[in-house]
């Protein structure tokens, strides 16, 4: 009798374990996707990051460029600069559930850490638009400097950080949308990234990135490859896409210098990381593809064809 009980418990435990494993792997399957905006053919390619293949192509507005993925809410916001609107994708079904009219060109997007708001740089009218995710509409906007390009939210200080491409500056706003600092960057800053007490801008025309200390407001420029477009950091490294060099610059942040370059596809523009899968994804505008790297050793795993002029300016990985 006792033995039979033991057997029974063992079977139960095993089946619980098996179903947990199943759920776990399934969770990763549905939550490990990259969304690639293809500006040349008005689509978004959905890439399964487990099997490394395109699983769906979604028609969006005209000339999609910017993107931000809300992981907790299972939503993707796509900025269409040709139709001046936002396509909202439900990442569970990969279908468009809403189109939000803006009447101005959305350049880049980011969200608040709680994912209640999406912030959008309005390139032509020098505003940042604020969308309520709950209401799916624009609820606020505020004036910023000229040609706002990249935008990023700093969790540590609750700062919203915006690059001004044509005035070679970066602006830092607090949570009440009040400008608290404007600093000079390198020439033509485009992408911006922030983590901890630092922000980083990629400066297209003078082949540098600017590292900004958000505590004491000191800045430092670091030389990279030709036409850097965007940047992110991983541990003590910063990774930068050099659009005209077809390469990534790898910067050691401790010494503040580029330590090597690795090859990408043609005209790499943007990049994002899947933390748990340890993947780095780079979008290649020139070869209409993405390059997938092992984040640990930065070796290329695979290049996948996506759509015409793949860009994905923003956080484009669901995880």
């Amino acid at each position, binding site marked *: 009798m006792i033995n039979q009980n033991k057997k029974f418990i063992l079977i139960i435990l095993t089946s619980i374990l098996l179903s947990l494993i199943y759920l776990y792997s399934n969770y990763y399957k549905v939550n490990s996707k990259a969304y690639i905006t293809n500006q040349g053919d008005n689509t978004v390619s959905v890439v399964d990051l487990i099997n490394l293949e395109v699983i769906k192509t979604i028609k969006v507005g*005209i*000339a999609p460029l910017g993107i931000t993925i809300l992981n907790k809410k299972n939503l993707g916001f796509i900025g269409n600069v*040709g139709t001046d609107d936002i396509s909202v994708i439900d990442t569970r079904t990969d279908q468009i559930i809403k189109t939000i009219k803006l009447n101005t060109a959305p350049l880049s997007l980011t969200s608040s850490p709680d994912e209640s708001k999406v912030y959008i740089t309005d390139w032509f009218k020098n505003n940042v638009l604020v969308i309520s995710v709950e209401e799916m509409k624009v609820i606020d906007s505020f004036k910023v400097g000229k040609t706002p390009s990249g935008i990023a939210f700093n969790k540590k200080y609750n700062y919203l950080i915006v690059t001004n491409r044509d005035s070679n500056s970066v602006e830092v706003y607090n949570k009440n949308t009040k400008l608290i600092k404007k600093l000079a960057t390198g020439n033509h800053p485009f992408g911006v990234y922030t983590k901890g007490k630092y922000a980083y801008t990629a400066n297209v025309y003078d082949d540098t990135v600017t590292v900004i200390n958000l505590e004491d407001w000191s800045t430092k420029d670091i030389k990279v490859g030709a*036409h850097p477009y965007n940047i992110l950091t991983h541990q003590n490294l910063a990774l930068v896409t050099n659009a*005209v060099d077809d390469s990534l610059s790898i910067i050691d942040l401790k010494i503040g210098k580029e330590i090597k370059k690795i090859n990408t596809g043609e005209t790499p523009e943007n990049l994002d990381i899947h933390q748990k899968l340890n993947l780095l994804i780079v979008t290649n505008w*020139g070869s209409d593809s993405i390059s997938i790297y092992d984040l640990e050793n930065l070796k290329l795993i695979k290049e996948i064809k996506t759509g015409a002029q793949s860009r994905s300016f923003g956080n484009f990985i669901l995880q």
Partner: protein
Amino acid sequence: MRKFIFALLTLLFSMSIFAHGPTPQKVQESITVNVSVEKAWALVKDFSSIDKWHPAVKDIKIEKRGEDTYRILSLESGGTLEEKFRSTDDDLKKIKWEITKGKVPFTDFNAYIIVSKGANANESIIQWTARFYRTYKLNPPIPEGQDDATAKAAGQVIVDNGLAGLKKTLESK
């Protein structure tokens, strides 16, 4: 009359839609050439030989400025174009350069050509990719001749004529 106004409004509306946005223009064309990949690459990689194959180029002058190499092209249509050499890669058979000066209806023009093997040893494929923007980058309305369509058309002509010129020159040698 009403129909005409409606058509006009539709046209204006659709134009403003397509005129919007900071979108880089892309021209990417390929041509198959009946020579070996080595022969094709030898001509393509030579930054100083474009006057031998591009029909729009009448004359060329090479200028060294410090580390950088430029070519000043005199055009058949009159006027000049200044281009800066960026790099060549013999493994990928790829050459890169950019237009730095000239009276052209586009800006930030970066280009590269890749030569690859064709179906047999005496066939190669030459692919030319160009990336550039329209000249007007501010808020619409966009002045005539400074829009995306004008930029794209001009870039397309350079690439199409260049590839045709490469084929002609390579195959007649």
